[in-house]
Structures are given as structure tokens and as C-alpha cells.
């Protein structure tokens, strides 16, 4: 082995070379270095590399995400500044991570970095083992920072820019991280989200975890309930079930108690989701996914309205009316108004030869399918939104348009009788059939399929072309 490189420049170049190594070679190198960590130069190098490793993506997952895992259900992902309720925005989560990463002592950081570099990211056990260390440290670090900002204005200004909202979010994060292990175990023990219902076994598990948190960190009980509520299809079902199971004392169910707190959070969350629906749709460009989200939202609203105990009636009812109006607005503006353009553009052909019209691109086809699905999903929401007539009329109109445009196209192809036109018409026929199926159902779509194939001279029992 060659002599030790000199301190400074040569170590820097070793560091730079190591940092360029692929993941599978980097990990053993890091392990080797750890064994020689008695040397000050090696320690400095390890510290430099550890900072790099904690930013690593192990199978698309950053270590920061592992720290956020226990409160990911409470993360507020929209860009809007306004933040109803005591939820956690992404920037606050990022800040929390920066503060925690900066506060970890060097040997611990190196240990965590080494463990992280060795995991694939999909191994939940290994990830949670790293997580447990991070959550414990994170909770202590953030709680200390929050406490210090309360007594030291300069520090508050310097660290959090004097933003009380951010301080509240960091306090929430610290609270959740203090019970992170319980939350993560509970997530594994309960059904995946959205949780439809909790059976006897689930309730037993839930009660056990609740009792443990009540005993160890009573102040974190609302955060635990809120986290699990957010995983429920009907968030208030959890409170109801727990109340029925006798989980709450009388003071928990008074104004200002645990139930009041969680109910308010749940309503705020629904409110925010309803108001953000159109923005969500704009960002995702997938009305089918947004419509599915809207349907779940409506279902949640209905169940919450029926099951509120502390916040029943009055102001809450008018908030729910506004939320329904927001969902209705999404359906009217983003689903119904855009349907003709989105769906109509992929069926039929403009005048002229069928083969001359460029076929719709994959993106256009996907967009049209998503729109058709959004319409079908909106139809399910129609009674709650009082839009039965509008949606049914739109679907009828589109059905007629698809049938007419397809008929016209088939007619043009049959008239020309050219193989190119017939082939192009066949492909377009299947697109129309698919749209019909998504909008109306398979029976009408199959009728169009048979009729179209007959018009093109492709007999019923003929197989599809090679």
C-alpha cells in the first residue's frame, strides 16, 4: 500500500474521487474508512462524505423522507401560503430536516450515513431502523429549538425568521417524532390507506397504541389521532369508534379537548382539499385522478357531517356547503366544460381521406381517456352535487357525437374502399369504441364495435389484423 496521502489537498482529492464512485463501490470504501477513523484526516474525510451520503437517494428515497415518514399523512403539499389548521407544510418539513441534520453529532452522523448507504431503500426494516435513530434525535433537537425560540427572541428571529406558524409546525413535528415508532407500527398493523373500516382486531391494536401514547407522551395523543384519521376514508369514523370503545374521558369530549381538536383539524383538512381541487387538477393534468379525489372528499364530508360531536351544526354546516360548492365548481369547470374538446378530438376525422388525417398522439389518447373516466366518476357524485341532469346530458351528447363522427368516418372509408383508409378507419373505430366503453359501458361499445367492423367489411368472426 502506498504512503498515506498528505493532509489537505490530497485528502480532498481522495474525497472527490470517492464521492464519484458508484453506490456499490462507495459503500465498501466508506466501511474501510470507518475502520481507520482514529486518524484525524480520515475523520475529517468521513465527516465530509457523511454529509454527502445523507443526501443520497437509496432507490429514489432520500434520508430526509425517512425522517418525514411518521408525519407524511399530515404534510401539506400545496404551494398556497394560507394554511388552515395545524398542518405541516413541505417547507417546514424541509427546515426541520436541515435543523436536525445540522445538529447530529459527527460519530452518529457517520453511523447513520453508513447504514443509509448500505440500504436499498425498499427494505422497510432497515429503513425503519435508521428512522428510529433519526426520529429520536429529531424529536429532541426540534423540541429544544422550539423551547429556545420561546425564551430567546433573537434566536427565534435568527433560526425561524420570527415565524410563529413555522414554530407551531416544528412543535407538531417534534411531537409526532416523539411517538414515531408507535405511529409506524400502527400503520403496519392497520389496513393501508384509505382505511375503509376498523374491525375488532384493528380496534384492539388502536386502543393498545393509544394507551401507550397516553401513558408515555400524553400531549401527543391528538397528533396520533389526527395522523390515523387522515388515513381513514371517513376520518371521523376513528373518533366515533374510539368514543364507542370508551377511549375518551368526559373532558376529552368537551370544547378544547382532544376530540374538539381532532374534529377541527379534520374539517380544516377537508376545507383545504376542497378549495385546492382545481389547483390539484391543474398541477396533475389528470381529471380522472382529481375526480376520484373529489369523490373521496365528498364521501368524507358526508360521514364527518353525520358524526361530529363537539363541532356540530351552525358555522360548520355553512363551511360544508362551501366545500360542496368548490367540488361542484371543479366538476362544472374542469370536467364538463372541457369534455367536448378532450374527448371529441380523438374520435372521427375532419373532412377528407381517413388515412390522411394524422392519428391522435399517445398523450392525446391518454388525456381523452382520463377525461372520460372523470366524467364517469362525476356521474357517481352527481346526486350530492345536484348535477345529475348536467352530467347525464353531457354523456348523452358525447355518446351521440362519438356515434355520428364514427359513422361519418366509416362511411368515408367505405366510399374510398382503399386499404389504407380501411386500416386507418379500423384504428379510429377502436378508439371510438374505447371512449364509448369508458363513458357508457361495454354493451353499447361492443355494439359500435360490431357495427363498425361490419361497415369496414371485417366480419364478426374474423380475428383482428396481424
Amino acid at each position: 500500500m502506498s504512503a498515506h496521502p498528505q493532509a489537505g489537498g490530497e485528502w480532498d482529492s481522495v474525497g472527490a474521487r470517492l464521492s464519484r464512485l458508484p453506490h456499490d463501490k462507495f459503500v465498501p470504501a466508506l466501511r474501510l474508512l470507518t475502520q481507520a477513523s482514529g486518524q484525524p484526516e480520515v475523520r475529517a474525510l468521513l465527516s465530509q462524505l457523511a454529509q454527502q451520503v445523507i443526501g443520497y437517494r437509496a432507490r429514489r428515497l432520500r434520508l430526509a423522507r425517512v425522517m418525514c415518514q411518521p408525519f407524511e399523512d399530515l404534510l401539506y403539499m400545496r404551494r398556497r401560503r394560507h394554511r388552515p389548521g395545524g398542518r405541516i407544510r413541505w417547507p417546514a418539513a424541509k427546515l426541520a430536516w436541515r435543523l436536525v441534520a445540522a445538529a447530529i453529532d459527527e460519530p452518529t452522523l457517520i453511523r447513520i450515513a453508513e447504514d443509509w448507504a448500505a440500504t436499498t431503500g425498499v427494505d422497510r426494516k432497515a429503513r425503519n431502523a435508521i428512522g428510529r435513530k433519526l426520529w429520536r434525535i429529531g424529536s429532541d433537537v426540534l423540541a429544544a429549538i422550539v423551547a429556545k425560540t420561546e425564551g430567546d427572541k433573537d434566536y427565534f428571529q435568527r433560526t425561524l425568521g420570527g415565524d410563529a406558524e413555522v414554530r407551531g409546525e416544528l412543535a407538531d413535528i417534534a411531537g409526532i417524532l416523539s411517538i414515531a415508532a408507535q405511529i409506524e407500527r400502527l400503520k403496519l398493523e392497520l389496513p393501508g390507506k384509505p382505511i375503509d373500516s376498523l374491525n375488532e382486531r384493528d380496534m384492539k391494536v388502536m386502543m393498545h397504541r393509544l394507551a401507550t401514547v397516553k401513558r408515555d407522551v400524553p400531549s401527543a395523543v391528538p397528533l396520533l389521532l389526527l395522523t390515523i384519521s387522515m388515513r381513514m376514508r371517513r376520518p371521523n369514523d376513528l373518533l366515533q369508534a374510539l368514543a364507542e370503545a370508551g377511549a375518551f374521558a368526559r373532558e376529552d369530549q368537551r370544547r378544547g379537548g382532544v376530540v374538539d381538536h381532532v374534529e377541527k383539524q379534520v374539517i380544516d383538512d377537508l376545507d383545504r382539499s376542497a378549495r385546492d381541487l382545481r389547483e390539484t387538477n391543474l398541477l396533475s393534468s389528470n381529471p380522472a385522478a382529481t375526480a376520484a379525489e373529489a369523490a373521496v372528499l365528498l364521501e368524507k364530508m358526508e360521514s364527518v357531517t353525520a358524526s361530529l360531536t363537539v363541532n356540530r351544526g351552525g358555522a360548520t354546516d355553512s363551511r360544508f356547503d362551501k366545500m360542496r360548492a368548490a367540488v361542484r365548481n371543479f366538476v362544472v369547470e374542469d370536467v364538463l366544460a372541457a369534455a367536448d374538446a378532450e374527448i371529441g378530438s380523438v374520435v372521427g376525422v375532419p373532412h377528407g381521406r381517413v388515412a390522411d388525417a394524422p392519428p391522435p398522439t399517445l398523450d392525446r389518447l391518454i388525456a381523452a381517456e382520463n377525461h372520460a373516466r372523470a366524467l364517469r366518476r362525476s356521474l357517481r357524485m352527481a346526486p350530492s352535487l345536484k348535477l345529475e341532469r348536467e352530467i347525464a346530458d353531457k354523456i348523452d351528447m358525447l355518446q351521440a357525437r362519438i356515434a355520428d363522427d364514427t359513422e361519418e368516418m366509416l362511411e368515408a372509408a367505405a366510399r374510398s374502399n382503399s386499404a389504407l383508409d380501411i386500416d386507418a378507419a379500423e384504428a379510429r373505430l377502436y378508439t371510438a369504441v374505447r371512449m364509448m366503453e369508458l363513458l357508457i359501458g361495454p354493451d353499447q361499445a361492443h355494439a359500435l364495435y360490431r357495427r363498425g367492423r361490419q361497415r369496414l367489411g371485417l366480419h364478426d368472426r374474423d380475428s383482428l389484423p396481424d
Partner: protein
Amino acid sequence: MSFPHLQTFQRFAPATFAERGVLVPFTSPALMGTRTRLNDRDRLELLLPGFSGGHTHYVVPWPAVPEVARMTVHDRALHEEIETNEICVPHDMRLAALKVATSGLAGPEVAETARKTLEDDKSYRTSAHFLLVIQILQGLGLDIRKLLEMGLESDEGQREARRSMGQAAARFGLRAEELYGRVSELSTLASPVGIESAKTFGRLRTLLDRLSGFRDSVAKWSDEAMADKLDGAPVAAFCADVADRTLRLGQQDLARFDGMLRDLETVICGWPQAPVELRDLATHLSWLLDGWEWLIQRWDETIELSRHEQMQALAEILTFLPVLPKDQDRRLVGKTPQPLGGLVHQRWVKAFEDWRTGQLDLDLIERIEARKAAMA
């Protein structure tokens, strides 16, 4: 939905692959995991697993299938395609499914995947052909440098290949066209399995590899569930065991297949028997692995999900598990089937419960189509 004792799966295992039938990749939820086979009068019939919510198989004459379940248009087209061509072997089923999928009747993404898969098949065949030519020339100690530089795509490369193959044919005592024809046939035979030395794994070799990952992952899940006294542990152990048996048979096939292709001279000289054996091995492998791909895909989708969802996936996988036919099980020596405990009678698979409402579940169809689009 309740399940009987797991032993039932073995007691009522099919006698042969032909009796087990071929998986039909329908997208209608009620027809998920169904298989087709020929009955004793050589007529097609469909096997419907778990149709009534139990663990029996319903046998439906093929023409009656549209009356039994509400089908998507894609499935009606596939149904017709299968009937027209009397399809009842995995290779033909795959081609029929890809053909129908390219129409777009299961959505544009499924169509795109199908088109790409067909193109990949073609290019794999070409590269297998090239590799076999190189291997033959190398085996005979002929100069292959020029050919490696040119490849087979260019006219120049084709000429060089013909010239070199002419030399090789003389050594085998064959005409050049004859040798070329044999290599061409071999490359068609070899491409579904893949050539050992190829950079890209063949389709069946890849699937065998994924099955090994599935077995390990499910066995690990079972061990952990057993330690935590979870209900799903015996089901996972059973699924891992069936995967393991299938894998061991598949690995035997693959070893024999690779061994034969390593000794190409013997194969070329052993014409016409040798290619028959290779074809039999490839066919056997395709029967063995039939139905596993989408189950592996289903399990892979749950990797990041909760144990509860993984149990649901296992219950679904169990319903459609391609249990080895008895004649295949007898080929395995050593490990005998582990005694399997009963499965707790529990309602696990919620998605199944909505299937019988009369209306097609569009969300479920979308998920099936998405899985289909993700599979090659």
C-alpha cells in the same frame, strides 16, 4: 371470502399442464385469472376460479363465457380471437393477447406496451441469430473479427456472414443455406428463453429470475408473519413453496437448454431430433411459468404497502396460484410438500366482493389495465 384448507390445492391439483389450462389475460374483473383448455371432445372451455366466492373452479363452455360474465370489449375481442384460432397453449395465447392489445381496446398504454413487446421480440430474435452465428464460427476456429465489426444489419455484414457460414457449412458437410436455415430455426426456438451469453435476458429466463425473487420475498414475509403470529403466514409459505417447486423444475429445463446451446455443433449435427428437444424444453418452460407474471407483478406492487394490504395480495395470489400439475410434482425429488396448516376463515379480499354487482367496476378494470401496461 373464505378459504378451505390449503391441502385442497394439492389434493385437487390438475394432472397435467393441459388440464391446468392456459391463463387468459382478460381485463374484466370477474374473469381475472381464468384459464382455458380443451375438453375431452377437443372443445375449448374456460376455468373460472373463485367465481362464487368459494375456492372451486367453474367450468364454462367457451361460447357461453359472454353469458356468464359481463365482459369489456377488449375481452370480447380476445374471446373471439381465441375461439377463431382455437388457442390453448401459452405461446399462442401470448401472441393472441398482444395482437388484441395492440388494437387499443384495453387503452393506449396497453397498446403501446404490446407494440413495444412485439418489436422487442423481433429484435431479440435477430440478436439471438447473430450470437448463434458467431458461436458456430468461433467453435470452428473461423475468423469472426470482420463480422463482429459489421454486424448482421448491413448488407456487407450479411455477405460476410454468408461467406463465413459457407465455410462453416462445408465443415459440417452441409450446404450453406441448410446451415443458415438451421441457425435461423434455432434462433426462433431460443429467443423466448434467451441465449445464456446474450446481454439481455430472454423473456422466460427473466421471468424465472423474477420468480426466484418472488419466492424469496414471500418466504421472508412468511417467516416474519409467523414470528408475529399473523394469519397470512401459512398462505405465504404455501405460495413460496409452489414458487420454489416451479423454479426448481424451470432451472432444470434452463440448465439443459443452455447446455445444449453451448454445444451447438452437436445440435447442428443432431438435426432434426436436437431442435425438437430444445423446442420441448422451451415449451415446457412456458407452461411452467404460465400465469406467474401477473402474480409476481401483483406482489411487487405491494412491496411498499402495509402488511394488511400484502395479506390481501397474498389471498388474491393464492386464488390464482398456478399449482404444479401432479405429473410435474412427481419429477421433483427430495423435498416433499410441507404439511400445510389451515387458513383462518376470514374476509380478506374486499375487491372481490364488488365484482358481482352487475356493473363493471371501472376502477378495478383501470388497475388491471395498468398492470397489463406495466408487463412486457
